[in-house]
């Protein structure tokens, strides 16, 4: 392995801006495929569903919620990646976040947008979905503020707004860098985007202060968003859902899922944008340590869920637990444990933790497991509620599976577009991690 040579400031600019300014056929192919899949697998079936009704999905009288909601939660969960990395690690002044936080924040934003799509796919009459907002209407009605879904709406919109501002604000100096390196239309655009950033001392000071403010603001927001999302379930009285553990469970799961998502995305960015010098082993190692911690917490919570289900002696909890672990979807439950509790234990070994390929695979498996977990929450609790004669069954329809696949395509499309419009590695913050020039001269 060649000795690691730190890049110079100029090299940082050049390498990162190159990812934006130079576009090869591989990119266009990727973008084309991703957009096609998004249209064919997501929008096509969705519009079909709008036309015939939500019956195009697989939900029924014993399971009114299905993959649309579980995917919504999955994507909200994935969105916690950026917040944690960006905001929390900023507060704790961890330097290793600097190369990866921009992409992580972008992941947050696009996960939220994808999740927002799922809200629209999920409701029965999407043409009235704006009634969720307190807009003037001829019925003279406010939305119902006691509803956990209403908390959801408020929390997610706040989070979306705050995250957009957060990422935008942090990118302003980089937009200036793009402006300075480009000509013509692009230069004009980025002049607008960068708000005329000149890099003065005052501007840097203001940015630092504002950025820290938002970091502090966004952290409780992230915790509350996923807690609130969990309360969609926990505020019901449905057995196996009505538990106080849900808020910490979901937040932990979200951060877990999000961090695994970062690992996956970083692997791909590194490979396809040639950013090996910037996204390095130290990042992977630290992400790995984060993941193993979260995995252990997650495992503990799952064990406690089983324990409380059994210990309660309640037929309601017991039947739901039994169905989850040994019913039709039992294999999925064990797969979830395998991928989210057992496989991540490999990360206790440094050799695994510092290897990009292994970590990529583990991170994908973790997210598959987390997607499964969300699905199981929805699919195994509703068919085992209170009246046994009403027990039922739910299986996703082809439309739902297609839309699930399509949602990844939407996310990918948005991310691919992002990569060309915003520097995916924070140029100025990376520079902060480099040795000052005078020290390197020797």
């Amino acid at each position: 392995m060649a000795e690691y040579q730190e890049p110079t400031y100029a090299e940082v600019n050049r390498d990162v801006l190159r990812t934006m300014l130079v576009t090869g056929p591989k990119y266009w192919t990727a973008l084309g495929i991703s957009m096609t899949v998004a249209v064919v697998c997501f929008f096509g079936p969705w519009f079909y569903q709008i036309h015939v009704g939500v019956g195009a999905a697989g939900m029924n009288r014993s399971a009114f919620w299905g993959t649309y909601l579980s995917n919504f939660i999955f994507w909200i969960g994935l969105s916690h990646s950026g917040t944690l990395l960006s905001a929390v690690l900023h507060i704790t002044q961890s330097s290793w976040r600097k190369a990866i936080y921009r992409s992580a924040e972008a992941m947050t934003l696009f996960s939220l947008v994808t999740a927002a799509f799922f809200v629209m796919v999920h409701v029965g009459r999407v043409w009235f979905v704006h009634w969720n907002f307190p807009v003037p209407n001829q019925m003279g009605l406010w939305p119902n503020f006691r509803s956990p879904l209403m908390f959801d709406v408020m929390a997610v919109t706040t989070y979306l707004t705050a995250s957009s501002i957060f990422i935008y604000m942090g990118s302003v100096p980089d937009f200036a860098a793009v402006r300075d390196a480009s000509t013509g239309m692009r230069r004009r655009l980025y002049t607008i985007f960068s708000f005329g950033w000149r890099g003065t001392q005052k501007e840097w000071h203001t940015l630092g202060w504002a950025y820290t403010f938002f970091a502090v603001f966004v952290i409780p927001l992230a915790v509350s968003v996923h807690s609130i999302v969990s309360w969609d379930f926990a505020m019901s009285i449905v057995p196996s859902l009505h538990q106080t553990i849900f808020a910490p469970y979901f937040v932990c799961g979200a951060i877990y899922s999000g961090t695994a998502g970062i690992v996956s995305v970083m692997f791909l960015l590194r490979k396809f944008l040639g950013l090996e010098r910037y996204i390095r082993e130290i990042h992977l190692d630290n992400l790995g340590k984060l993941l193993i911690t979260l995995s252990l917490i997650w495992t503990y919570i799952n064990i406690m869920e089983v324990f409380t289900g059994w210990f309660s002696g309640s037929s309601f909890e017991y039947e739901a637990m039994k169905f989850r672990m040994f019913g039709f979807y039992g294999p999925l439950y064990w797969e979830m444990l395998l991928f989210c509790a057992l496989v991540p234990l490999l990360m206790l070994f440094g050799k695994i933790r510092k290897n990009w390929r292994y970590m990529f695979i583990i991170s994908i498996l973790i997210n598959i497991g987390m997607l499964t977990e969300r699905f199981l929450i929805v699919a195994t609790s509703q068919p085992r509620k209170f009246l046994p004669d009403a027990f039922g069954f739910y299986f996703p329809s082809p439309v739902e599976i297609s839309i699930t696949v399509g949602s990844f395509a939407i996310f990918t499309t948005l991310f691919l577009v992002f990569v060309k419009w915003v520097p995916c590695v924070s140029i100025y913050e990376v520079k902060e991690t480099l040795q000052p020039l005078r020290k390197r001269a020797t």
Partner: protein
Amino acid sequence: MSTANTLRDYLKPGYYDEFDYHWAMTIDLDRCTGCSACVVACQAENNLPIVGEKRFSERREIKWLRIERYWQGEYPDIKLRFLPMLCQHCDQAPCETPCPVAATYHNQDGLNTQIYNRCIGTRTCAVYCPYEVRSFNWFTYTWDEPLEQQLNPDVTVREKGVMEKCTFCIQRIRIAKDKAKDDDRRRVRDGEVTPACVQSCPTEAMVFGDSKDPDSKVSQMLNNPRGFKVLEDLNTLPSVVYLQKVEEQGHGHG
């Protein structure tokens, strides 16, 4: 009514429990034979769609009232018990809180109402309902002509994306209240309004009326010692009280 007085009213104990009427129903399980006349009566009265075999096999049927079956024991000491299950019109309904657009709420007659034109179909209410009495319009169902000529003009026909459930035949309650109003503002008398299910029940197992009226038949039935509420521990405070089937002791079988 000044604002101050209105606000003071909100603080009075029992203010939120004041109902104009409090419609309640009792179902005597010792009379119920499971014949399902009530199910068809509800279908006829409330324009419930004919969903067809395919939708039925997908568990998409729409039944505001269903008969549940519970077997007890093993052959030959086997018993079958019926439980007609309909919206319990809970006074602490788990379904009213979570609707984000306030399409379901508790009205001043003690009914849990569903406002079809406000519903956007998030289906949260149905997930939260422990009795699983809510039905969703997964599609817009149609009737082969001329079956649509039977539709009751007093009841909306729902389109896809909208949740529906038993309303205690609110259209009949409204008509009865209107009639009472026309007759000099007297209250609706006991027996003037019966939901379709209660009206058809061949064994007279179902009784409906105003539980605020101490002389109504339903008030007497509510005092019956055999009375119980299904899943009472969930504290939903249902307005439907069931009278437990009398089990005769001392029998062998076969």
